[in-house]
């Protein structure tokens, strides 16, 4: 059984870690479109997938956020990846399955998965 006391223990542990952790800004920002069309197309598990992968890999430098409309309903779920000094990468028709690869190839290793991006449409 999960209890509120357990939460106190988690707090104590997390505070200790926060003290040793250096101040790190979010170097990479992952943004998931969560307007009605995005949610209907499956944005919730995509967002949850990014949150989970980032936590699992302990990526302190990455933030995952939601936004409203990105303006291309037919390509939802849409995910945008922002990185300081680089051009924005827009992923379209995302799925939980695609998330793992985007995190591994792009977020961790710096190579965008071109075939999932909006840019691949013009090819």
């Amino acid at each position, binding site marked *: 059984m*999960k209890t509120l006391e357990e939460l106190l223990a988690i707090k104590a542990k997390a505070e200790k870690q926060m003290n040793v952790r250096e101040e790190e800004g979010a170097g990479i920002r992952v943004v998931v479109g969560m307007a*009605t069309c995005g*949610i209907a197309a499956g944005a919730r598990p995509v967002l*949850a997938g990014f949150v989970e992968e980032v936590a699992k890999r302990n990526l302190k430098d990455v933030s995952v956020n939601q936004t409203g409309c990105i303006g291309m309903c037919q390509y939802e779920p849409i995910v945008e990846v922002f990185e300081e000094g680089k051009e924005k990468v827009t992923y379209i028709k995302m799925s939980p399955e695609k998330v793992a690869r985007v995190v591994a190839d792009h977020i961790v290793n710096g190579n965008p998965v071109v075939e999932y991006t909006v840019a691949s449409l013009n090819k």
Partner: protein
Amino acid sequence: MRELSLNILDISQNSISAKATVVEVSVEENSAENTMIIKIIDNGCGMSEEMLRRVNDPFCTTRTTRKVGMGIPLFKMAAEMTGGSLEISSAVGKGTQVTAVFKTDSIDFTPLGDIDSTVITLITMNTHIDFLYRLTVDGREFVLDTKQLKEILGGVPLNEPEVVMWMKDYLKEQTQIIRGGVV
């Protein structure tokens, strides 16, 4: 939408856009009456009477990126298809309450689906907002109030991975208890 929990996530986005600081999501099931009542209550900017009238017509929106709003019409349709209803009350500067009644024995009833995932998404993506989630099944009630969690956690954020894991397990266990299962 495939699950009512997705409609709930979407309708709650309206509350977030309306700058609410407290959002209450309540799901109330009554098996004797075959009803499910879903309420989303916020203390956001609210709507004028004129706006409220228009929102009940389909395709009204104040968004600027496209001309139609789909969130409320979709939720309303999901409720009315089952023989239920959707009602909105709102006051400018006070907040908004959306109440949807579903008949669960209708063949057009969409299941609630992964409501825990909706609650976790709302909480972790909007740590500055207080969420109160209430699940009532045949009179048995369970409440998760982030205000209470924040008091315990102090400066540790609600989106800290270990806290998120705790919330997921807590929701799952409490839901099982409410639904009469063994943990």
